[in-house]
C-alpha cells in the first residue's frame, strides 16, 4: 500500500528569507522563483499543523478561512471573522500563518491569528 507521508517535505525554511515572503506577497498565484516554489511545497505538502482551507461563501466571490480537523468525520473548524473577497488575499493570509508556524516569526502585515 503506497501512502503519502505528510512529513516528507523537509526543505529547510530560513527565517531570514524575507525576500521570499515579499515575492509571494507580490504574486501569490505565481509564477514563482525556484526557492519560493520549494518554500510553498514545504508549506502545502503537510499543511503545516492542521491544514488551513477556504470555505466558499459565494462562488468565486467570497471565502471564509477554515481549518481541517485532521480526522474524517469531524467538523471543519471555521473562522467567521476571517472572510476574503480576493483569493490572492486569502492565499497571503494562509501563507503568513504558515510562515509563523514554521519560523516562529510573525509577519508585519499579516492578519491576526485566528483563535
Amino acid at each position, binding site marked *: *500500500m*503506497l*501512502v*503519502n*507521508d*505528510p512529513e516528507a517535505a523537509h526543505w529547510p525554511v530560513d527565517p531570514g528569507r524575507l525576500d521570499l515572503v515579499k515575492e509571494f506577497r507580490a504574486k501569490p*498565484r*505565481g*509564477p514563482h522563483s525556484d526557492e519560493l*516554489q520549494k518554500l510553498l*511545497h514545504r508549506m*502545502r*505538502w*503537510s*499543511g503545516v499543523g492542521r*491544514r*488551513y*482551507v*477556504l*470555505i*466558499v*461563501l*459565494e*462562488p*468565486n*466571490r467570497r*471565502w471564509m478561512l*477554515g481549518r*481541517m*480537523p485532521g480526522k*474524517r*468525520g*469531524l*467538523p*471543519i473548524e471555521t473562522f467567521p471573522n476571517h472572510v476574503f473577497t480576493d*483569493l490572492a488575499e*486569502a*492565499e497571503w493570509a*494562509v501563507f503568513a500563518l504558515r510562515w509563523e508556524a514554521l519560523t516562529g516569526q510573525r509577519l508585519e502585515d499579516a492578519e491576526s491569528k485566528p483563535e
Partner: protein
Amino acid sequence: MTDTTAVLGYAWPLVVSPGEEVVFHLSSATLERAEATLLRVRCADPDPSGPGLRFEQPGCPLDGSVTLRHQPIRPGSCAVVPDAPALNRSGSFSVACYILPTAPLAGPQTIISRWRDDTGEGWRLGLDAKGRLEFVLRGQGRHWRATAPRPVIEREWIFVGGMLDAAAGWMTVVQASLDPQAGRDTSGAASAEGPREFGWPGETALVIAAHAVEAGEAPRTAGHFDGKIDRPRLHAGALDAASLRASVETLAPVPSQPDLIAAWDFSMGISTDRVQDVSANRLDGVLRQLPMRAVTGANWDGRTVQWTEAPELYGAIHFHSDDMNDAGWSPDLRFTVPPDWRSGFYALRLRAREGSDDPVESFVAFFVRAPLGKPRSKLAFVASTATFLAYANSALRLDQVHAEAMLEGVIALSRDDVYLQEHRELGLSTYDTHSDGSGWCYSSAKRPIINMRPRGATFNYGNDTHIIDWLEQTGQDYDIIADHDIHRHGAQALAPYACVITGSHPEYFSRQMIEAFDAYQRGGGRHIYLGGNGFYWRIGWHPEQPHTIEIRRGMNGLRTWEGEAGENALSFTGEPSGLWRSNGRPPQRLVGVGFDAQVFTRSYPYRWLDAARDPRVAWAVEGLDLDAPLGDFGLRGGGAAGLEVDRVEPTLGSPPHLLWLATADQLGYGGVPTLEELRTLHRGAMGDQNARVRADIAFFPTSRGGAVFSTGSIAWACALSCAAYENSVSRLTGNVLRRFLDPAPFDGFDA
C-alpha cells in the same frame, strides 16, 4: 450562503428515456417539506464570472411542495446468511477462518457471528477494542468470553478460530500467524469457562464481517469488520486447533462430513453479490453494500495476477466498515417523463427557508436520454456518467496529503465538501480511500452524489454543462446519450448521429464503450472530443445492477491510491483494469491525443502550428487569426489549455493522417507530466523544460467519411462563453461542428 445539503436525494434510474418513470428518493434531517421544481439544466456552474446557473422549467405535475422525512444511511458491508435449521443447534461447535485485518484498532469488530444486539444473545468471533481476538457467547442472562493474549497485526494474514466444548464447559480462542517470524508472530490461544448448555438465538441471521442488531432475515447490522476474510468454516463439535486449521486450509472441504455445518468459498461467484456454502447444508448468503471481491486470499502466491486464471487463490473478500452501494431509501416522488420532452441533463430542485439568511437550494440530478434508435438530432452530446460515478462524492481534497500541492493553492471547499467531511456515510469516490486506507474500487448511483448536480463541484458535471450552455447559445439542437447506454448498446447508441461530442473529461471507459466509439468512427461517424484526460481508465460495469462501475487502479497511471499486488482485474467482468494505454488501446489511437500532464498553476493559450494552414482544414480556421494566440482566456486559470492536457504521440497511435493544428507547449513549471510518461527518474521533466508537457489540438479523417477533432484540455469547455461567446475557442468549436454535421467527405487524404 446557500445551504445545498439540508435535503439530499438520488434519482433512480439515473438515466431514463422519455415515457419512462424516474423515482426520487429524498431525505432531510431538518426539513419537514421543500418546494420541488423539475428543471432542464443548461449551465450548472454558479460562478458569476461565467454564464451562471441557467435552467429551463418545463413545468410538470411534480412541481410543488414535497413532504420530507429523515432516511438514514447505513454503510458497512457484510455477508448475511438467513436463519436455517442447520444453524439451530445446541452444544459444542467450532468456527474459524483466515483474516487480514486492515484496521484492527478502529474499534470492536465482528468477524463472524450469530448474534443479535437487541437482546444481546448469541455468539461472535471478533476483535476487541485493542485488536485482540475474542470469542464471546451470551445467553440465559450469562456471558462467556475468551480473549487471545496478543493483538493481531494490521495487514498480516492470521488464522483465527473459536471453539466451544459444551461437554467440558470450556471455550477456546486460537490464532496462528501465517508468517510467524521477524516480529510478525502473534500466535497464541486462550481458554475460559464456557456454557455447558448453549442455545443459539432463533430467527437470527448468521453474519460474516458484522453482527445483526435484530432478528429476521434481513437485519440491520453493526460491528463491521475492516479487512479480508478467507474460507470461513463452521463445525459441530469442539475441534482441536490443528483440525480446525486444516479445515480452513483445505480449498475443497468434503461436503459429506456430518459435522461440517458450513464452509463458504468466496472464490465462487466472484462477479455476483452471493456467497456460496460448499457444505451439504447449502447455507448460501447475500452480500450487502458491495464489499471488494477478486482480492488475493491467504494462499495467493503470485503465480498469477489474474483471478480468472486461478480463482482458488482469490477466496477472500475485503470488507469495509464504510462500504456504501445502496442507500436503500424509500421513494418520495415518482414522475413519468412525458414522451415529447427533450433529452438532457435534468435536475429536481428542492428549495426551503426561502428569504432567510440560510436559504436551502439542493439538486438531485438525472439524465433523460434520447431513446435508442430514435434520434431527434444529428448531434449527440455524451453524458459522461461513468466518469461522474468514478468521481462521485470525492473527498480527495479533504483527505489526501498531496491535494493542496497538486492544486497549487489553498483548497476552496464548497458547502457540499463541508458536509461530506462530516457525512462519510454517503460513500466516497474511486479517488478516495476507505477508512482502512484501501482504495475505493466501486461506485454506484443508488446514493446521493453531491458533486454531480448544479451548484456542485465544477469538475466534470459542471464543466460539461458549459458545452451544453454553448450548444443552447448557438442554437444547435442535440440529443443526450449516456455512457451507460453506450456500454449497454454499443455502437448502436452512437450510429444514428452524424456527430457525437464528448465532454471536458470523459475519462472512464469499459471495453464495450471504447469499441463502440472505435466502430462509430470507422463507420463514418464524426467525433468531437472537447476535453482532456479522456479514454484513460479501463472500467467494468456491474453485470446486473445498472449505474455501478468498478476500477482497479493498479500500479501505473495518475492514481490517488495504488492497487494491491494481484488485484488489478475487475471482479465484475474478469477483465484487466488499469490504464487503456496498458491495455493496448491508448487514447491517441482513438482520438489522436492522450493524457500527458496536469497543470493547475494556471491555464495557457495554444499557438497555431503549420498544419492549421493546410487547405484541407480551411473550414476549421475560417475567421481565425492564425498569428494570434488561441484561447488566451477562460474561466479555469485564464486559458483554454489547462488542468489536464493531452498530446499527440505517434508511437502511442496518433494516426498518420492526423493534422496537428495547435499546441500549448509552454506550460511552465506547473506542467507536471503523468507517471506513465516517464521511463526513468530525472530532473527537467516539468513543463518549463519539457516540450512533451503540452496540450494539442488535432484533426484526422477516419474511414467512410468519418473524422475526429480533439482539443486535449479540460479547460477548453470553460472558455467557450468568454466575451459573450464571441471568441476564438467558440469560433473554432463552431467551425468544426458545422463541418462535422455536413456529410461531405474530407478530401485530400490518401486512402
